[in-house]
């Protein structure tokens, strides 16, 4: 394991993907350039940046939740937070079809926070036991998905946009979305990185962490809040691109180890790489048809989750 070297290589991989993301598309490069620079900068570059931000957000959210509950099976989607964000945002999208996009983010965050609160209330007597967390999450997700379906069926005229958004797609994402996302990320990501050492200490158990000077209750509260907010912001802009929050921290841990000072930046970059890769494939596999990126991440992510379940020994 060469954690430092890996940490230096990741940005290179990410940059290479950003460049390919701009150059590749349903139109070949020459035609795209002849049509004017608009296609590359206005359409592709902005969309690539949205993918990078959302992927980083989902990855970080997953790493934070896994750190807080000391459970490698946790992630914003597994515990239902993304479904909650999705349900709230869908409701907004369907009830006020003409609302400005910037409203999606607060609505997704409140949906996610409500879900988290509900989850914590449901497991209040058992603590953050892994199996209970996952099972409660499954039930909660199913319930929230049912609410979302019900909303969709009762608003047939606005269904299309909502459906594409719900599966997790970067279709039609542009500079407006970057502008809305960026301020949130500039606040949330540094706050996340500042928690690195406290998350390290939390991994040693509550008593050891407290003994080493980490305020366990506050650390846990803030890390959960940041994680939920990051997941919600990402989901608000590109829908529920599933399993990125679960897989990215795992890959990062394999590459750079479990120290959060390295793990968090690595997870953010891997999350960005995954979503970007999924989007590039989604655009180029079968043009002009465009697959939602979320379909691709689920196709790969769900089997990986099953694999983790078979190996997990901590029940």
């Amino acid at each position: 394991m060469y954690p430092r070297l890996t940490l230096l290589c990741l940005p290179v991989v990410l940059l290479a993907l950003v460049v390919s993301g701009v150059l590749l598309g349903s139109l070949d490069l020459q035609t795209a350039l002849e049509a004017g620079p608009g296609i590359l900068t206005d359409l592709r570059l902005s969309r690539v940046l949205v993918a990078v931000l959302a992927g980083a957000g989902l990855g970080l959210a997953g790493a934070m939740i896994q750190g807080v509950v000391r459970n490698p099976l946790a992630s914003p989607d597994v515990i239902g937070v993304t479904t909650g964000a999705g349900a709230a945002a869908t409701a907004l999208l369907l009830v006020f079809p003409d609302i400005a996009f910037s409203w999606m983010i607060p609505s997704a965050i409140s949906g996610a926070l409500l879900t988290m609160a509900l989850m914590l209330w449901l497991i209040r007597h058992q603590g953050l036991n892994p199996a209970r967390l996952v099972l409660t999450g499954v039930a909660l997700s199913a319930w929230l998905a049912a609410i979302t379906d019900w909303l969709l069926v009762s608003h047939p005229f606005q269904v299309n946009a909502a459906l594409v958004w719900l599966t997790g797609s970067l279709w039609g994402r542009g500079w407006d979305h970057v502008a809305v996302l960026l301020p949130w990320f500039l606040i949330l990501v540094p706050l996340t990185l500042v928690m690195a050492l406290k998350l390290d200490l939390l991994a040693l158990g509550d008593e050891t962490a407290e003994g080493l000077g980490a305020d366990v209750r506050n650390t846990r509260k803030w890390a959960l809040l940041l994680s939920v907010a990051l997941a919600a912001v990402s989901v608000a802009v590109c829908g529920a691109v599933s399993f990125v929050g679960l897989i990215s921290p795992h890959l990062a841990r394999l590459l750079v180890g479990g120290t959060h000072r390295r793990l968090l930046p690595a997870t953010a970059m891997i999350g960005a790489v995954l979503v970007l890769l999924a989007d590039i494939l989604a655009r180029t596999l079968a043009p002009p048809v465009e697959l939602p990126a979320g379909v691709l991440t689920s196709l790969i992510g769900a089997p990986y989750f099953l694999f983790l379940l078979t190996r997990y020994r901590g029940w």
Partner: protein
Amino acid sequence: MAYLSIENLTVSYGEKVILKELNLQITEGKITALIGPNGCGKSTLLKTVARILTPKQGKVLLQGEDLHKQDTRRVARQLALLPQAPVTPDGVTIRDLVGYGRAPWGSRWGRLSDDDRQIVQQSLEQVGLEELAELPATDLSGGQRQRAWIAMILAQKTDLVLLDEPTTWLDIAHQIELLKLMRELNQEGKTIVVVLHDLNQACRYCDELVVLKQGALQRQGSPEQVLTQQLVQSVFELDAQIHPDPVAGTPTLVAV
């Protein structure tokens, strides 16, 4: 002024009172063993001193200052705790683990300075783990793992060290090794409070015994003063004889 002073301390889990109006003084520079039957409140006392638990009433004073009114990080520079079951995280080397001992001193971001790294190296050498330092902590055996945790506490550079049943999961050879290591730390000037189950080990390796029963102080004093037939009978409800240890001369309990 006593070094560590427990004043009128009452601690409860919900309705259940574990410690009741306990008064106790711990002497600086000594090893004090907390002993007593299961559920007598010895671990609870240790956890309250370490601020894991908040007292319902009363105070814990370290050199005259109330521990429960101080910032967590500041307390972590004065006392270190080895809990009964610390969690060994995945993907962290032994050196990383020992480095966490510097958390209360170093940067809040967790980067270690050259001084910090040197302290980590010394701590690893003192417990004899310097050769294994780059291995994942999860690869260690029980005895090695306990030594790694001790190294972490050494790196924390506190004057007071609290050990909660440090020998529980170890075989007899590793138990003795750990108790000897504890004595070494004490000779370097650390005050140690340790919860032990084995009375003979407590008598042999500790300077003072504190006996608790149902959350109240029964006896405090040197092993010779404390470990008597009557005390074992009244606290543990066990018929026993006390003989001097053939090697060290300290009191040894033999069940009848």
